[in-house]
């Protein structure tokens, strides 16, 4: 075990998969010589050469489209979209193409393809380097959308994503790239897709969260436990689509009170879907309203820090929401 940041863990996962499987390759803007704008792919081109770690033209539809073509011809491409905000040109290739190959060909063609996407608000990121785009993709059957938050999970899930026969959108919260560090196993391991993780057990309320908000929620949960004896069960979906309903429902039925928190715009969000699942399938166990916490319905986080801080649910808002639900 060594302590690794999220971005180190992801980079290490890529390198290990490339070493063990020659068909694994990386393509995207600035992933080669520069090692990626966040340095996730640092050193890969040196080790694996300019074809397997390919700097592409600045054309997102091409990046994903070419990755699809690679994937149907024996390769396991990992495409990088530099910022989630720039993914819309590739939307057709992801949603209409990669996600549908298997279904529309009656199982003849599949796309074992991973698309790494840094997302989430950071200071200075502003409208086009901050967005949380997961909801756009979470009603796309055939696509898997994963958003691990912690380094060991991210490395293990990246390996699962690369080995998965389906297209996987792999969301990485860029604010947590260097913020979160933890021990990451040295040996080869994989964390399965489609399984939520219970970070903390508790019987007063359930908080379902991912990304930076999850990290904050876990800190608040510890605080509430110490100061007020409120025990919060914290569940991280890890895979946002398709959801691990079972784990979420098990926790919802246990506590009867559910808060779903993320920094995505609230309307039409993944949080809304989780809330609907809980309301429909755990109704008889509920002991309070299903609550959500998210960003206001404005386009994205602003450049100015006060507006950014207002946009992303912070410790105070998360604590207030948890207390409100606990006291309900």
């Amino acid at each position, binding site marked *: 075990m060594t302590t690794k940041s999220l971005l180190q863990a992801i980079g290490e996962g890529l390198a290990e998969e490339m070493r063990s499987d020659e068909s694994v*390759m990386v393509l995207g803007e600035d992933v080669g010589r520069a090692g990626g704008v966040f340095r996730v792919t640092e050193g890969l081109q040196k080790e694996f050469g300019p*074809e*397997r770690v390919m700097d*592409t*033209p600045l*054309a997102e*539809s*091409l990046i*994903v*489209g*070419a*990755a*699809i*073509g*690679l*994937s*149907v*011809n*024996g*390769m396991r*491409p990992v495409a990088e979209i530099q910022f989630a905000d720039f993914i819309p*040109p590739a939307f*057709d*290739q992801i949603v*209409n*193409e990669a996600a*549908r*190959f*298997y*279904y*529309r*060909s*009656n*199982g*003849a*063609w*599949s796309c*074992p393809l991973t698309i790494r996407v840094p997302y989430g608000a950071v200071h200075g990121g502003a409208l086009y380097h901050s967005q949380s785009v997961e909801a756009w993709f979470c009603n796309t*059957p*055939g696509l*898997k959308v994963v958003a691990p938050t912690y380094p060991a999970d991210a490395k293990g899930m990246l390996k699962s994503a690369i080995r998965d*026969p*389906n297209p996987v959108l792999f969301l990485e919260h860029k604010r947590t790239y260097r913020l979160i560090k933890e021990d990451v196993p040295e040996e080869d391991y994989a964390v399965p897709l489609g399984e939520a993780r219970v970070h903390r057990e508790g019987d007063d309320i359930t908080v379902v969260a991912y990304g930076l908000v999850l990290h904050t929620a876990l800190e608040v949960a510890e605080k509430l436990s110490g100061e007020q004896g409120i025990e919060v069960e914290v569940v991280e979906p890890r895979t946002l689509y398709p959801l691990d309903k079972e784990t979420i429902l098990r926790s919802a039925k246990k506590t009867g009170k559910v808060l779903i928190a993320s920094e995505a715009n609230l309307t039409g969000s993944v949080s809304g879907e989780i809330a609907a699942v809980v309301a429909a399938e755990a109704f008889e166990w509920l002991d309070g309203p299903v609550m959500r916490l998210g960003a206001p319905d404005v386009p994205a986080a602003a450049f100015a820090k006060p507006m950014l801080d207002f946009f992303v649910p912070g410790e105070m808002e998360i604590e207030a929401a948890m207390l409100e639900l606990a006291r309900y």
Partner: protein
Amino acid sequence: MAIKETRAGREAHLGDDDLLKIYRYMLLARRVDERSWVLNRQGRAAFVVSCQGHEAIQVGAAYSLRPGYDYVYPYYRDLGITLTLGQTARDQFLSLLARREDPNSAGRQMPGHYSSRELNIVTASAPVGVQYPQAAGTALAFKMRGEDGVVLTCGGEASTSGGDWHEAMNFAGIHGLPVIFLIENNSYAISVPEKMQIAGSIAGRAAGYGIPGVEVDGNDVLAVYKAAKEAFERARGGDGPTLIEAKTYRLTAHSSDDDDRRYREREEIEEWRQRDPLVRFERYLEEVELLDEENKEEIEAGIKAEVDEAVEYAESAPQASPEEALDLVYAEG
């Protein structure tokens, strides 16, 4: 009948049996297409999208591919390509009638959205132009592994208007990828004529991406065959992509749901019918004495029997059960 090498055949390195095979594929495509319209007008088939007028381009281009090795990204008119690669009339009618045995999609997709894992026909989509970046990626895989596979990707002239085509041409040019972009320019994008769609020339655009661009008479099957074969050979030899613009005319409406009388004159169609690639190749084969009344009738009769049998088979084939709509969303394993 005496078998002798024709002049055109010699130039194209084709034997007489190849020429007759090409003719048979073209005729089969035409007859399957015509029968599809009949089934549609009888209310037995929901939708038809047609290849009529494209047969020379499609059969000519596909004839020198290695089915199941080279990759093909066809578009929805490419019946002539898929038949040449090995799909059958039965396959086509199973797809037209949305039967469970439809090899393209088991009744999920509209007719014309081809797919075959065995023949390396990559599942086709309806949005126009999305196949080009994919084809470039598939070609990149061949190149990375040092294999001599080539990729043929096709579309109409309107598919060059969107970004995907340009992104793919650029990428193929940068890396010298073994991919052939075959543009089947049939003069109309549904109702919009070529002059409203294309500035300058399509073939001329290849120069901007540093790759060869070839313009070819799309009604001359041997000319298309020759251009395609040369392009494949360049690609296999590591000399990168080629753009082929094959010019023809769409002899039918865009689809069974389109009425082309709203936007083009009958006279114009009649004029192009005189240049029908099928008729043209027939005349050529008659000139070189490969085809006469006798073997022509024989070929026609064989194709008619094949089409009759295919329709009968498809009509009696079962449809998928409603619940099969839920299957195969995700690949396992």
